[in-house]
């Protein structure tokens, strides 16, 4: 130990996955960034954003859709589509058991929920991923749900919005997971030719095969503040190059500076921003 008192390590090293999500008990929550006490109710009203320092806690997928559509109304889609176990994968526990445990703990059928409704009066097919389901990983079910969203949007001439929160492709479905990148991107090629909008919203974290497929294919790409966004994870990069990564590397603001995202938008302004974009992109002329 050196003679000076060590400063608290910065956010990146310090905050565990658990802490990033608001704990579900108690009336107060302490902000992990500025340590202000926050009323749970107040935090819910501010879309899980700290009202003192604007720190964005992780958002739940359902809440995301509830706060996105007009009047919070939408039709849930493909809830019945769930993961298979094509490889009969067993590591320290069977993949099947991991899926069951994830369903219980997250209350979700898969790592994405999707729905159809209107936003600012525009027809939108939207999906929101959730880190609480096997790290938001993309397997066959996630790939299928997103592809169906896109195909429906093509058929009904709607827009597609996907909120990403994912560690990447799901290892336990092997090459099936990898091919979801190809499947979704192929569907996006048709959506693109049909002159229909795809808005991709990157939230903390978006990495791996999700970033390297649909997440980076938005006509407009929005990032939430300070989200970790990249192809390779920071640890993999550090191991490869054997040096520490610069501060702020792979954060939203870094991507904005390097021209990889169009804008960094506070969650509380997300819906208004999306409506503004849809007003521009949903052009009846292009339907002809």
């Amino acid at each position, binding site marked *: 130990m050196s003679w000076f008192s060590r400063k608290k390590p910065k956010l990146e090293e310090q905050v565990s996955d658990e802490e990033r999500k608001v704990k579900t008990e108690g009336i107060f929550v302490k902000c992990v960034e500025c340590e202000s006490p926050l009323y749970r109710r107040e935090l819910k009203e501010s879309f899980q954003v700290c009202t003192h320092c604007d720190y964005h806690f992780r958002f739940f997928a359902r809440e995301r859709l509830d706060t996105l559509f007009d009047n919070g109304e939408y039709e849930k889609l493909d809830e019945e589509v769930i993961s298979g176990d094509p490889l009969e994968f067993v590591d320290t526990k069977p993949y099947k058991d991991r899926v069951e445990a994830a369903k219980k703990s997250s209350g979700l059928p898969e790592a994405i929920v999707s729905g159809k409704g209107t936003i600012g009066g525009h027809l939108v097919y939207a999906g929101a991923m959730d880190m609480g389901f096997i790290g938001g990983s993309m397997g066959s*079910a996630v790939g299928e749900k997103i592809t169906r969203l896109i195909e429906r949007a093509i058929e009904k001439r709607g827009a597609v919005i996907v909120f990403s929160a994912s560690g990447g492709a799901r290892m336990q479905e092997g090459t099936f997971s990898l091919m979801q990148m*190809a499947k979704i991107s192929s569907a996006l090629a048709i959506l693109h030719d049909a002159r229909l909008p795809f808005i991709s919203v990157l939230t903390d974290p978006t990495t791996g095969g999700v970033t390297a497929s649909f997440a980076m294919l938005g006509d407009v790409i929005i990032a939430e503040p300070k989200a970790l966004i990249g192809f390779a994870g920071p640890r993999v990069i550090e191991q490869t190059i054997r040096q520490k990564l610069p501060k702020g590397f792979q954060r939203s603001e870094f991507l904005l500076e*390097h021209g990889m995202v169009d804008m960094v938008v506070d969650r509380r302004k997300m819906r208004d921003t999306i409506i503004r974009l849809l007003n521009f992109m949903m052009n009846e002329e292009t339907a002809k």
Partner: protein
Amino acid sequence: MENDFNKQAIERVQTARHPSRPYALDIFSSIFENFVEIHGDRRYADDPALVCGFAMLGDEEVVVVGQQKGRDTNQRRLRNFGMPKPEGYRKALRVMKLAEKFKRPILSFIDTPGAYPGIDAEERGQAEAIAFNLREMAGLKVPIIVVVIGEGGSGGALAIGIGDKVLMMENSVYSVISPEGCAAILWKDAGQSARAAECLRLTAPDLLRYELIDEIIPEHSVWVVDRKEADSDSESSFDSIGENLKQILQRNLEELNKMDENQRMKNRYNKFRKMGAWIG
């Protein structure tokens, strides 16, 4: 070793990575004629880890792209161990668009541990480069045949892997993550990589069974560039396997060339569309 479909997965991984196996440029110069290399992405740099060019397969002009590894220390460094950076993927797409412009088919050869995970690659948009290739390859209007010749390492492999036909050499592998990476994450022990390799079902026979690939190109003997290293009973194994590969490419190309363009595009979409194993 003949058609040994029961070979351990980790052995396939080791064979796929073996430095005496033919690399993309070995194949370009052996089964193709008149190869001329095309360099650079016209945006940032030329990436030696991904080689592209025009070539002739028999009497047909084609575009070839492929990841390129190196054999000695200098070559390995130059080729970045076959790990492309964004400029490599952007170069490949540029050349594939030339194929579309001049109505020539595309033959893509996969052999990479993965896309390069580095600061510069991230800064220049590694994820975007891969993603954009996926979407654009899906829409390229000329026939595309993909062959995994060695290592099919995740998104960095798939970035040149969308096609009408996806073939694998018998001893190649294609996986969402390396066995070592998988073992480190799921077992917290890189020593479990043999087990991870087994679990990942990354061999050609597995992937054919799952209908994730279309065909396996047999390797009747050890497939090496240097003839001295080949089986004693098959002195010219590179030539014989290469000749076989050439014939299979020509057969597939003939089939795709005959097909109506709209039908071919529809088939390509449906091919990837049906991939996945979900319930409901």
